[in-house]
C-alpha cells in the first residue's frame, strides 16, 4: 500500500490550515516521501511535538500505509 503525495498534503492541511506543505517523492514508488511543513502552529513547540502534530494529522497512516516520510518542520 502506498499514499499519493496529494493525499498527504491534503491531510496535513486539514489539520494545519495555514501550513505550507512541500512533498517530494524520494524513490518514485509512492512510498518514500520527504515533506517540509511550515506552520505558525509549531511556534514554541519542540521538534518532537511539531512532528507529532504532523503525524496526528496523518491519522495513523504514518508507519502503516505510509512507510517513510522524512519530515522537516518549521514555524516560519
Amino acid at each position, binding site marked *: 500500500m502506498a499514499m499519493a503525495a496529494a493525499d498527504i498534503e491534503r491531510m496535513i492541511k486539514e489539520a494545519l490550515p495555514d501550513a505550507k506543505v512541500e512533498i517530494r517523492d524520494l524513490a518514485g514508488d509512492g512510498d518514500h516521501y520527504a515533506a517540509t511543513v511550515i506552520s505558525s502552529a509549531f511556534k514554541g513547540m519542540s*521538534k*518532537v511535538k511539531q*512532528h*507529532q502534530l504532523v*503525524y496526528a494529522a496523518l491519522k495513523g497512516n504514518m*508507519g*502503516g500505509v505510509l512507510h517513510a516520510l*522524512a*519530515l*522537516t518542520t518549521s514555524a516560519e
Partner: protein
Amino acid sequence: MTDINAFIDNEVKSNDVVLFMKGTPQFPMCGFSGQIVQILDYVGAPYKAHNVLENADLRQGIKDYANWPTIPQLYIKGEFIGGCDIVREMFQSGELAQTLADNGVAVKKAG
C-alpha cells in the same frame, strides 16, 4: 502500565542512551535505523540498542510509549529525543553533542 511499557520505561531510565531500531548496530535492517547508528558512532556516544524486529510487543509498545509512529527512536536519560529526521538535524546543528554533554554522557573522541 502494561508489562512492555514498564520494560521500556525501565530501559530508557536505567541506561543513558537507548536506541530502538530495526536490526542491530552491526546489521541495521532499515536505512533510517542505520543513519542513527552512524551518527551515534560518529559522535562516540555509548548506547544500548534494542532490535524491535525480534519482539513484536516491543515494536508496537515503543510506538505507544512515545506516541511516535515510527522506528528508530532515540532516548537520552529517559527522554525521547526523536526519530531519524530530528536526530540528524540535531547532529548537524551540534545540538546532539550538546544534549549528550548536558546530560553528562561521556563520548569517545572519534579517532
